[in-house]
């Protein structure tokens, strides 16, 4: 029997018991729809993150005190870490491929303005960092210069904390040292929103204002801008070797971390990838149940058409042909379910995007879903098809 004949037979039998066929397909539709919707959200998030990362470029790296484990566990602001020294900063600057180095200190300072006092997170950095890493935009004024006790405030800090709004040109006190506000940031959003409540000042000024609590000029973070064309990973390795040397440390006892752009994207992607797998896996449970539904329907189908099968065999159909017939039928149930499920998943993804949840359905997701649904259909039909193919023609013809 030609393959086309078998397909036609499959279709006609499905059409005979429409309600049953549709209910069976519905199970697969829901399963595939769930998988596509969930995985598309995961992919959307991944793409959103990658876009943000790419905007940062690839010509930079960051050195932070604290070993990799301590960085990923608790916040390094709270831990006890060996900061980076001025010598180490100079050493990093001298490594081939490094264009310029910026040292940073993070700490809290007391802030006073128009009679009110508070605590603020302060970030002291080498001037020029905002041109090298243009994440922040100014609403008014300019960025600070070194050694002049100048400060730039985040938008929330300037506008919402004190009874009076702080303006460019005002004087404030940080740790009882007078600073002049030379600029105020625009409200930042997304990844940079934390800057809204921060005071930015020169690292040397900050170190002096912190007084006796911090001794020498030391850094909580060093950012390095690389020369165009240099390989961030290679430069990173060179820095690691140099600093390990200076600190007399080995690979295992290394207590600082060099973060390259690739490192960040890889970590983020692997976290999201795992999330995707978990969500997809859970949704796949419903697909398994859908497959059980197909198996059920196919067993029913075989039983009902026992005489039909007997007739087919009597006029010359081989066992193989019978098996093919039923596997095609169950595979078709799978494909139709997969197709509709993908459509529903696309719809959900579209709606999600309207609501601001990033969601991306790409071709590989759809093709995987279609293949998967076809496979589920075929596998579910395997046992019923075998049973059908093994029917004795004489017995089958006699079946009531």
């Amino acid at each position, binding site marked *: 029997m030609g393959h086309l004949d078998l397909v036609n037979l499959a279709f006609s039998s499905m059409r005979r018991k429409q309600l049953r066929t549709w209910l069976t397909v*519905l199970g697969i539709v829901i*399963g595939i729809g769930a998988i596509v919707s969930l995985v598309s959200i995961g992919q959307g998030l991944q793409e959103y993150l990658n876009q943000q990362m790419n905007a940062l470029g690839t010509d930079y790296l960051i050195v932070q005190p604290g070993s990799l484990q301590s960085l990923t566990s608790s916040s390094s602001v709270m831990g006890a*870490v060996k900061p980076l020294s001025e010598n180490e900063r100079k050493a990093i600057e001298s490594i081939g491929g490094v264009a310029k180095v910026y040292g940073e200190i993070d700490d809290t300072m007391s802030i006073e303005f128009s009679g009110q006092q508070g605590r603020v997170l302060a970030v002291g950095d080498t001037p020029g960092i905002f041109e090298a890493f243009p994440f922040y935009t100014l609403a008014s004024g300019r960025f600070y210069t070194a050694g002049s006790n100048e400060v730039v405030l985040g938008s929330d800090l300037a506008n919402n904390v004190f009874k009076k709004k702080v303006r460019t040109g005002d004087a404030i006190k940080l740790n009882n040292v007078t600073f002049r506000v030379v600029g105020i940031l625009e409200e930042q959003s997304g990844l940079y929103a934390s800057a809204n409540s921060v005071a930015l000042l020169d690292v040397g000024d900050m170190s002096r204002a912190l007084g006796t*609590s911090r001794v*020498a000029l030391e850094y909580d973070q060093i950012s390095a801008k690389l020369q165009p064309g240099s390989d961030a990973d290679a430069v990173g390795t060179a820095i690691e070797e140099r600093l390990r040397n200076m600190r007399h440390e080995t690979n295992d006892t290394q207590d600082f971390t060099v973060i390259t752009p690739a490192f960040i994207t890889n970590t983020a992607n692997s976290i999201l990838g795992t999330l995707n797998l978990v969500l997809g896996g859970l949704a796949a*449970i419903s697909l398994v*149940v859908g497959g059980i539904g197909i198996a059920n329907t196919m067993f029913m189908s075989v039983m009902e058409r026992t005489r039909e099968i007997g007739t087919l065999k009597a006029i010359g159909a081989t066992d193989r042909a019978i098996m093919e017939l039923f596997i095609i039928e169950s595979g078709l149930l799978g494909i139709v379910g997969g197709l509709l499920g993908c459509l529903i998943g696309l719809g959900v993804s579209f709606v999600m995007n309207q609501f601001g949840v990033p969601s991306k359905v790409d071709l590989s997701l759809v093709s995987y879903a279609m293949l998967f649904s076809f496979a589920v259909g075929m596998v579910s039909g395997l046992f019923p098809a075998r049973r059908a193919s093994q029917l004795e023609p004489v017995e089958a013809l006699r079946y009531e």
Partner: protein
Amino acid sequence: MSHLDLAHYALSAMRHRELRSWLTVLGIVVGIAAIVALISVGQGVQSYINGQLSSLGSDFITISAGSPKSAGGMGMGSFMAATSTALTTNDADAIRGVGGVKAVHTVVALRGDLSYRGDNITTSVVGADPGIFDDFGAMFKVREGRVLSTSDSHTVVIGNQIADDSFKTKITVGRPIELGNTTYRVVGIFDTSSGSVFSTGSMVVMTAADARAFMGNSRPPNAVDMILVKTQPGANPDDVANELTLRLRNVRHVNEDNQDFRVSTASSFMSRINTITAVVSLFLGGIAAIAIIVGGIGIANTMFMSVTERTREIGVMKAVGAKERDIMEVFLIESGLLGLIGGVVGIIIGSGLSIALNSLGVPALLTPQLLLFALVFSIVSGMLSGLFPAQLAARLEPVTALSAE
């Protein structure tokens, strides 16, 4: 027809098509097992966290600067990052007299450079009045040496991480360290903290007086970063917390809308954590519940087929006097039974998975409520799935039914 007869009839119909019944049930089994396993993990995580938190007791309140609307925990990280007008010793004094308050302690925090034998690190430095160790001993357990006393000067207690891991040689009790430009003697080393308000492992604690000298005039002398309140035994911490909030609003001249401080009780913190874990496990459980929906469709499918096959039977039953109601009852019992059996087997498998996860180190907790919920859920899913088919059967015209093929 009596209910028992109807039930018997339903059972015999199911046994008539055994394979079909089992496959239908299998769908529910998979879904219920997944839900039971997932939610048991959620509950396990919740009870683990609660256990950690309640070891601290619940008779304390923390007050920190910062708006209560912003996300924050109870620990130091939350107030170090906040921008706000600071708390002062005035605030602490103002609440000492509030009913139910046993003791009020103030804490200042900053970061400092700690040198030991020529090497140095940056670490958190906390200044507190020594009375805090009496009232909050559970948070500040030492494994060597002692805590600070009121007569102490230029002495510190350091965290185990600083003592053991931060320098080439370990720091032991009695040794001197340098903070800023001043020398302090180590009189105690903290034990590992677990889920405490303070991560004492990487902290240096000195007396409030020493801390003020350490800060110099970088901060006003009456500045305070956190106020810890111990409540009287028997007092309700939440009631006391409310009283404190009102009193502080008065003293700081703020009202509910612009409240610039946060009052947290152990229970409010726990309930925040519990809400988060509950939401996550509900979300995961919800995804697993999609499987139940598909299983329910399977039941509906089976029931429709069942009705079609037994059309003549239904006609006969109606002919001998069965009411529409009885017919509906038959099929609802049948679909409910499918759900019930699926639920029971699913619960058994799900519980097995949960126990297996436990032995692998993943916290998973089975509660009677979870199992009861799963059982009811499966029965209801079954009956709901069977609703339309049952209605279809009930509305068959006896004459037409009897003449069906």
